[in-house]
């Protein structure tokens, strides 16, 4: 067992524990903070699996931007800490059923995977410059599509915000509140 393997299992344990803690918290702020730890763990995992650029991006985008956005919304909405203890029985049964199917599929896939999947993988480091070259030479069309997607998301969010403001203006004018 090399140092890399020990590190991998350590990170895997941390990620699973913190993610499990995150989804069971009733306080949303605690849930988001636990999830930040989990995303840091996956950033280290990306470093370990030979993707340093992705690890840095994971810290910047996931742990830095997305989770902070969640924190903003949680603090903005003043969501009451719900009891959330009583998950409906029907919902729990559906969740159990899906879990069962999922685990069956996982076990079958592990069982019938080839012998090459069972031996340790060779380490590989994709340096950021080679990765960027590969990305922008081979996948430029996908980059354009993703940038278009981000633009559409931006316009959509702007429209949601603006239409809400306009409607409030209208009701304010009509009702004279």
């Amino acid at each position, binding site marked *: 067992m090399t140092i890399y393997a020990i590190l*991998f299992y350590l990170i895997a344990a941390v990620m699973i524990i913190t993610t499990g803690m995150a989804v069971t918290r009733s306080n949303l702020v605690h849930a988001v903070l636990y999830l930040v730890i989990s995303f840091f763990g996956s950033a280290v995992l990306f470093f370990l699996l030979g993707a340093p650029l992705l690890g840095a991006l994971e810290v910047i985008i996931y742990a830095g931007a997305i989770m902070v956005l969640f924190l903003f919304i949680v603090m903005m909405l003043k969501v009451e800490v719900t009891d959330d203890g009583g998950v409906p029985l029907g*919902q729990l049964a559906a969740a159990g059923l899906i879990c069962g199917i999922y685990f069956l599929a996982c076990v079958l896939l592990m069982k019938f995977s080839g012998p090459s999947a069972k031996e340790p993988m060779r380490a590989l480091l994709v340096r950021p410059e080679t990765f960027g070259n590969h990305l922008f030479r081979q996948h430029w069309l996908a980059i354009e599509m993703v940038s278009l997607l981000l633009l559409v998301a931006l316009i959509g969010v702007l429209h949601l915000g603006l239409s809400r403001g306009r409607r409030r203006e209208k009701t304010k004018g009509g009702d004279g509140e």
Partner: protein
Amino acid sequence: MIVPYTHVMLLAAILFLIGMLCTITRRNLIMILLGLEIMLNAAAVAFVGASLHAQHADGQVMAIFVLAVAAAEVSVGLALIVCIYRQTGTVDPECIESNTCKLE
């Protein structure tokens, strides 16, 4: 020499399962969106593991696209949640559906 491919996939599968359970069972729109984030992150982990297994960088390219899609999805989702909260005063999906706790 790192760990076997199946172990990385198993980690991604467990993370995906936790996210899916969160999405199915929690009764809070923000937690549902958080579960979606966990699932997307698990997919990214699986892609990076597959990239290492195949000794090819295409998996990491897909992981970058997963990151971009997650950013777009979360911004639109949170804007919708804020919209819903302004209109109904709650983030409980059951409550919104049955229209029981509408803001007077």
